[in-house]
């Protein structure tokens, strides 16, 4: 059974349609990404499935519950980290965790959670004194304190420096490894590529595609490109004979091959047969960035 089901979600604010038609299913134990530019409707979607907003149309089910009608029950099994949310400046880390633990029937141990998320030495620190990365780690901890079966993490790494972002990614994977289903909202392509098992690409209130990050990139039809310096003279025709290869070009001693499908495997296998070693091998694959432009027809303006 899907953990989160969204079918034809529609949400307006006055005359502005924030979400036109969004459908996707999140399966047990995966990290599912909602990817799209700012203003695409990601946060509204998350607010509808967290029970903060009533949808104007469509159906939303989270762990078999209706987020609005069964809101109280949902709060006990779904952990939510909203994009913009804070804590009182003078609240200490330990106090925040103990407070949120007290709201749940079977909470996790705050001390253990602080250790797991690297907050133990900050237990007595006030919220205001924490770095951005520490605040986000606390946000994850608060989302996890109720031992939820699923968590929603909205723009978790926005505003973090690259190092803190990578640390946070590791923690999200850790959360998934404890068996918790993760819905991750992001506008960073790199983040979705690194973390997500599957991604829903949302643009202007609609789902453009749902696939694995690699599947999305492939669907975008982007070519792959590889460059290397052959260790021995190389017969171009050997490469051109491969169905995966589209073009072969030379830049001095370096050959550049572009093509589609399983290009890298086909070419390296052919080189092995000819007993040629590919020195300084570089491979460029289509990224989610390319996929985004190909599938939406415009670059992510963010």
């Amino acid at each position, binding site marked *: 059974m899907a953990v989160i089901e969204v079918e034809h979600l529609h949400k307006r604010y006055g005359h502005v349609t924030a979400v036109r038609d969004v459908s996707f299913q999140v399966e047990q134990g995966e990290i599912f990404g909602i990817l799209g530019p700012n203003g695409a409707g990601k946060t509204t979607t998350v607010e509808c499935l967290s029970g903060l907003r009533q949808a104007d149309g469509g159906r939303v089910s989270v762990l078999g519950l209706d987020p609005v009608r069964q809101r*109280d029950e949902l709060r006990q099994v779904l952990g939510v980290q909203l994009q913009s949310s804070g*804590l*009182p400046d*003078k609240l200490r880390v330990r106090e925040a965790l103990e*407070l949120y633990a007290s*709201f*749940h029937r079977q909470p996790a141990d705050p001390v253990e959670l602080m250790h797991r998320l690297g907050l133990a030495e900050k237990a007595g620190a006030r919220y205001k004194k924490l770095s951005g990365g520490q605040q986000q780690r606390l946000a994850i901890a608060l989302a996890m304190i*109720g031992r939820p079966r699923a968590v929603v993490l909205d723009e978790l790494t926005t505003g973090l420096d690259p190092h803190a972002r990578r640390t946070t990614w590791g923690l999200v994977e850790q959360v998934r490894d404890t068996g918790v289903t993760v819905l991750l909202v992001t506008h960073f392509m790199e983040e979705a590529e690194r973390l997500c098992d599957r991604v829903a690409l949302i643009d202007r209130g609609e789902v453009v595609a749902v696939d694995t990050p690699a599947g999305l990139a492939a669907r975008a039809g982007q070519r792959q490109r590889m460059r290397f310096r052959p260790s021995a003279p190389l017969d171009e025709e050997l490469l051109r004979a491969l169905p995966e290869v589209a073009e072969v070009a030379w830049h001095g001693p370096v050959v550049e091959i572009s093509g589609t499908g399983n290009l890298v495997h086909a070419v390296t296998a052919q080189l092995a047969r000819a007993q040629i070693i590919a020195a300084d091998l570089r491979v460029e694959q289509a990224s989610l960035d390319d996929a985004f432009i190909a599938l939406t027809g415009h670059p992510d303006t963010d």
Partner: protein
Amino acid sequence: MSTVLHFPRRGLRTLTAIQAKLLLREPAALVWLGLPIVLVVVFGNIPAFLTPAADLGGKRVIDVYVPTLAAMVPLFLACTALPMTMASWREKDVLRRLSVSPVPAAGMLAALVAVMAALATAGVAVIVAIGALAFDVSTPGNPGAVLASFVLGAAAVLALGLLIAARARTGPAASAMGVPLMILNFFASGLYFPVAQMPHLLQRVCEFIPFGAVTAAWSGQGQLWQHLLVLAGYTAVAGPLAARTFRWE
């Protein structure tokens, strides 16, 4: 009630304790609680305030000021501390985060009111005790009526403060509504000018302002039941309205 089922009672206790701690970490808490206590001690040491005055009907100034200074405590807390705490939580998206936790809106308000009510009770008790023990301010003729009016009065201003707390988007917006409300109540309770020395019409108007009604009940002016009814009316209207119109963000 589903709220009772899904929200453990220890949650409400912890929320109340944390709110009390956070409030006492604010330097402003010294003003809310300390200023009235300092004032009662200062006034009690002004010799002129300890002699009976003819225009106060033979009472001393200190006799009139103890209830007024006692009233400052719930007024400071209800009109400034309560709305500004809640508004700053709203402004910093603290409420938004709480809104995705199992805390119900009524629980949020209840915890904050519980803290304010406890602090107000403590503050009033200290001031009355200082007045009675140090400056020989006599216990009022009808202690039951006075206690009832003070409890209802505190409830009325807390309910009004709660209404501001439920709606104000920012700290400055909250104080823009709370401070005039507080000053109006100070005026009606005779902080700036003893009520007994006001023109008769103004005295009557003041009886319809929460702490004007409390002061009137304390000093035995007018009908007691009328004062209590005015106070209960404020609470009955403003309290539920606050819970119904509560804004998480």
